[in-house]
């Protein structure tokens, strides 16, 4: 991957080398693993062991303040770290812990930070997502899970769905309605809920890419008053919009960003085209394949630059071209690009791409798996939703 000017100083170049050296030791061979599309317990074990190694170095908390287990390093170092993680096809940090760390650092109390950030940094405590409901997907503000105050406790009742890999998690960040009389967006709060609390029940929803989403039921689940994250009734702006539309800051986003998985994937397909012949000609010499690869390179590069831009803006604080909708544009683009990339890669690899494993599988069957996984692009909101936000908030079109 081509950096912009991340490496302008000897210190930053040395930092990049340090990250590379670590990865070469910690990842002796290329390794593709996506936590949301894999249930193999051995893979999970290896995956968590890797992230605990990263956590031991505190690179999970690279930019966090020292008082909360962080190293207090500048954001540009995190960018370099992420570039190297992407280049090495490192599986992303498990589930939504990195997002939760962002919420905690922005809106949590001192006590909440002390209590939760260490487990996230160590990758010993995993956090699942409790946002979507059967009746509230893209229109998340239609959620009906409720929480009411009872003495020193909050009592949660309702049902969450599509909790990716939540069965591997110990805690969940749950959005619930705390003011039924307020306008839809103004009555929602966020709670930090241990998944072993009485009244929590989880049922599997297997996804088409070999992973597991989950249905999570809350039946009079009681959590202490200090489980409220951020201000009461303010979760829509503080938490949810913070996940998709807010400016990124040193606290977010996830390590080894999801959207950048496309970089190593395309590189693998390019390598495949250089060593695979069809009809006596290398795929890389087939003019149609070259057009397809060029088009995919253009898409990947544009998305990578959008990620650079988002990250850079978070550092510089300069306004972005489409304001708060810039992030939504970025998301709309990569959400649409995943299935497209998958489709074109399937076309390039051809009929053998259907084979999932064994000696005849091409690229270890990973393209076929990616094709199935690419329809998980709705997570965090559909591309249509992102485009609607871009249109109404970024382009000032009427709602």
């Amino acid at each position, binding site marked *: 991957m*081509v*950096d*912009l*000017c*991340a490496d302008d100083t000897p210190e930053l170049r040395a930092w990049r080398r340090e990250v590379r050296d670590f990865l070469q030791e910690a990842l002796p061979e290329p390794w593709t693993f996506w936590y949301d599309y894999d249930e193999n317990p051995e893979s999970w074990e290896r995956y968590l062991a890797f992230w605990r190694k990263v956590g031991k170095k505190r690179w999970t908390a690279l930019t966090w303040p020292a008082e909360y287990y962080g190293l207090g390093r500048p954001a*540009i170092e995190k*960018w370099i770290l992420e570039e190297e993680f992407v280049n090495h096809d490192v599986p992303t940090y498990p589930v939504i812990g990195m997002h939760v760390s962002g919420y905690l650092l922005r809106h949590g109390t001192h006590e909440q930070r002390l209590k939760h950030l260490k487990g996230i940094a160590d990758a010993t405590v995993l956090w699942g997502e409790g946002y979507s409901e059967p009746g509230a997907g893209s229109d998340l503000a239609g959620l009906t899970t409720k929480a009411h105050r009872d003495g020193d406790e909050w009592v949660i009742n309702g049902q969450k769905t599509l909790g990716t890999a939540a069965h591997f998690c110990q805690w969940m960040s749950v959005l619930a309605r705390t003011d039924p009389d307020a306008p839809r967006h103004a009555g929602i709060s966020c709670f930090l809920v241990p998944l072993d609390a009485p009244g929590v029940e989880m049922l599997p929803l297997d996804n088409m890419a070999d992973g597991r989403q989950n249905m999570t039921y809350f039946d009079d689940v009681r959590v202490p008053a200090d489980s409220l994250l951020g201000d009461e009734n303010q979760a829509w702006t503080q938490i949810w919009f913070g996940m998709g539309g807010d400016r990124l800051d040193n606290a977010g986003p996830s390590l080894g960003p999801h959207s950048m998985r496309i970089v190593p994937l395309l590189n693998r397909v*390019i390598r495949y*085209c*250089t060593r695979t012949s069809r009809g006596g000609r290398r795929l*890389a010499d087939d*003019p149609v394949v*070259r*057009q397809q*690869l*060029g*088009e995919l*390179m*253009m898409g990947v*590069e*544009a998305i990578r*630059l*959008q990620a*650079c*831009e988002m*990250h*850079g*803006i978070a*550092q*510089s604080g*300069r306004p972005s*071209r*489409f304001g708060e909708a810039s992030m939504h*544009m970025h998301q*709309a*683009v990569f959400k649409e690009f995943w299935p497209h990339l998958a489709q074109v890669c399937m076309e390039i690899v051809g009929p053998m791409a259907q084979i999932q494993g064994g000696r005849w599988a091409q690229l270890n069957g990973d393209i076929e798996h990616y094709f199935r996984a690419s329809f998980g692009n709705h997570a965090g909101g559909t591309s*249509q939703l992102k*485009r*609607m936000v*871009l*249109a*109404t908030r*970024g*382009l*000032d*079109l*009427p*709602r």
Partner: protein
Amino acid sequence: MGIDLQLSEEQELIGTTANEFFEKQCPPKLVREYESGSPEFPEALWREMAGLGWLGMPFPERYGGLELAMLDMVPLYVELGRHLVPCPVLDTVALAGSLVYALGSDEQKKTLLPGIARGDSTIASAIMEPDGGYGPEAIQVRATRNGSGFLLNGTKVLVACAHSAGRLVCAARTATGVDEHGISLFLVDPRAPGATIERTPNIAGYPLYAIGFENVSVAEDAVLGEVDAAWPALYGTSMKAAVLQSAMVVGAGERLLAMTTDYAREREQFGKPIGKYQAVQYLCTDIAIHCHQTRLLTLQAAWRIDSGRPFLRESALAKASASRAAGAMTFAAHEVHAGVAFVTDYDLQLYTRRAKHWEYNLGDLRYHLDRACAESGL
């Protein structure tokens, strides 16, 4: 430029200055006036741009220029695109003049570049041939030895503003073949005996010519750089100019986006503004996305050139994106405007027709996608 891909304040200032200048000096009325008309371009505007230093940007001071970087030029070219400035800035400065600067002798540079920078004269580039290809194999005009000089035979097409140009920078074969070796560049007087110049009506309403050479004699000192070895500089300079052409597409795209969203807010059908319909919103976001992605790819390529890094892959991706965007953005703008934009009184069609020229100019989508592969080692 940092990884936020934003221009510096000084660079932004070049853009805002140019925007204000063209807003006053280059209204759509002027653009229309010079469509397929004569003279080829507004000389007064040209001289004013020269006075602002815009025609000598890439050249060093001793040749009358400002020696600015690509990232300083990008904002100017964005505005040239936004306002459809009907002048051969890209053709004369970024391509022909830059070829002279890249390959010419000190004498040749002293003769030609200060005149361009002052706005006194233009030079045109004569690269493409009727075959329509962009690579070295497409250059087949022959230059055969004739005493100490050469005789040119063959045809060049899509040569911009050739009629008023003092010189053409003409690419020709000094050794037969189809590969990179054997290509030379010549400075040719478009009025030389044996040269015929024919205006070709075209979609952009831009002065584009076909130029025939029949035993056109050029002297030895008309060669730019080494005989047989011009391709690398021609390719590299074209790839840099392609980045500035991409910047022009970005500028046009920003205007298209503004025009289209303005219209979508105002125009009412079925009792509400059409911008409320998500089908219309989608088309508007298409323009924004194509434009923004092209902007980022253009900035990256310019930054790589300025910082001395390899840039050919990134330039190819920028122009590929610009070529695709040129078509996609005008398509979406027309879909939203519908009937009103089919009428010539409306300005959108001015953009549509020029965007098509820019889509092809200095390499189309297909060419640059293939170059992106080639420059990635494929």
